[in-house]
């Protein structure tokens, strides 16, 4: 019984979301608000479990008292619910932003800059390699903002064309995954809900 109720509720919500394609309507609005509640509920539960494992757990079981610091910093974030004391959350935001910035800065220079530039240093022995290096250089110059001279302008234009080819290719390549998403839902409605053809 619970299984069929689950499939019917899932089908009701699935069709509710698809109904937006015709027009924004109460059925979609209901599915949307249930989605807001469900997704925030799941985030809260996983958030609590995470806190238990890596903050409260070590503090209580392995009495790592320094875990009090991140817990206190975390609680200070709740000061934002008030207007007068909102400033008290700034230290916690500073920590959150500082650690993220450090991890991103190190990763960006290593994996996204140095390793990518080194990978572009190819032997110009084959036509494809020559084309690849030329196109990468042209497209990279598109991201120069303070260059004034005219010849650079032409290279930047070529760069923009390269980017457009890349964006078009990604669009064409993404169509497949978007269709497969819909086929996934269609398979659910046809085979699990309406039980056709199986």
């Amino acid at each position, binding site marked *: 019984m619970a299984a069929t109720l689950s499939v019917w509720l899932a089908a009701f919500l699935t069709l509710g979301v698809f109904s937006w394609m015709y027009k924004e309507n109460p059925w979609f609005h209901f599915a949307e608000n249930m989605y807001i509640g469900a997704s925030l509920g799941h*985030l809260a539960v996983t958030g609590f479990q995470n806190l238990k494992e890596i903050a409260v757990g070590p503090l209580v079981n392995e009495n790592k008292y320094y875990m009090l610091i991140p817990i206190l910093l975390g609680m200070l974030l709740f000061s934002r619910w008030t207007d007068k004391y909102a400033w008290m959350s700034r230290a916690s935001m500073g920590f959150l932003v500082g650690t993220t910035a450090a991890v991103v800065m190190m990763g960006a220079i290593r994996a996204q800059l140095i390793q990518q530039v080194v990978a572009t240093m190819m032997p*110009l022995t084959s036509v494809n390699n020559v084309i690849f290096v030329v196109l990468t250089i042209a497209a990279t110059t598109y991201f120069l903002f303070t*260059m004034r001279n005219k010849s650079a302008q032409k290279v930047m234009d070529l760069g923009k064309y390269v980017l457009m080819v890349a964006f078009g290719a990604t669009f064409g390549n993404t169509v497949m995954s978007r269709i497969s998403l819909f086929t996934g839902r269609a398979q659910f409605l046809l085979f699990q809900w309406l039980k056709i053809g199986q």
Partner: protein
Amino acid sequence: MGFKTGSGFHLLVLIAYIAIFVYASSRFRRTGEVYVRELEGVKKIEEGIGRAVEMGRPVHWSYGTGAFDAQHMAAFSLLSYAAKLCAQYDCRMILSIALPELVPMTDEIIRKAYSEAGKPNQYNPDDIRFLGGSHNAAMIGTIAREKVAANFMFGSLFYESVLGVEAAAMNNAIQVAGTANTHQLPFIAAGCDSIFIGAEMFAAATQIEPTPVRVGSTYAEDWITRTMVVLMIIGSLMVTFGSDALIRLMKL
């Protein structure tokens, strides 16, 4: 105690960045002259808010659903620009937010924009909507119900880019979007009136409000990118003639 391998050149890049940054920002403080290539997206944001005011309809803003990273920092500077315009022209801005970390920061920016425009009491926290995983459903629901006249999407965008663009296109709203996520650039390139591709989002902040800090960073980023282009050329030529000395140097 020792130097970790593979981080030598990495440190060189950081030091070079800091050096050029200090030089360029102090030069700007002295001379005040700066050139940043015209980014038409900035004017389009103002045009979008102007249209929304004329039609008496709200404007919609989203950061996308991607994890918190530096793209959101660039989005913050564009948001404070757009929020100031909205505050000045009394245009309502509705924000859809998927990430919890962005709520306090967005709250701070909008609060500041309204107080700088001299209207602190018009700041309405209810329009800053934290939606978590349901961001996309709530976003297209809001765009359709509120009939937004302009739609702005900046940050780490995922599949919500095509949703936002097509949903707002039904209101034929003015749309400007920007992200560094390569997989979403095609959808905003095809559907938006104007876009910021990756680094352009960061350069836009310098064009909007050139402060010594921003001018310093844009020039530092530019000069190091030019060096990297030159290195690509030299490196390829050297490898063609059999020497990978430069590659080994960069992996030091």
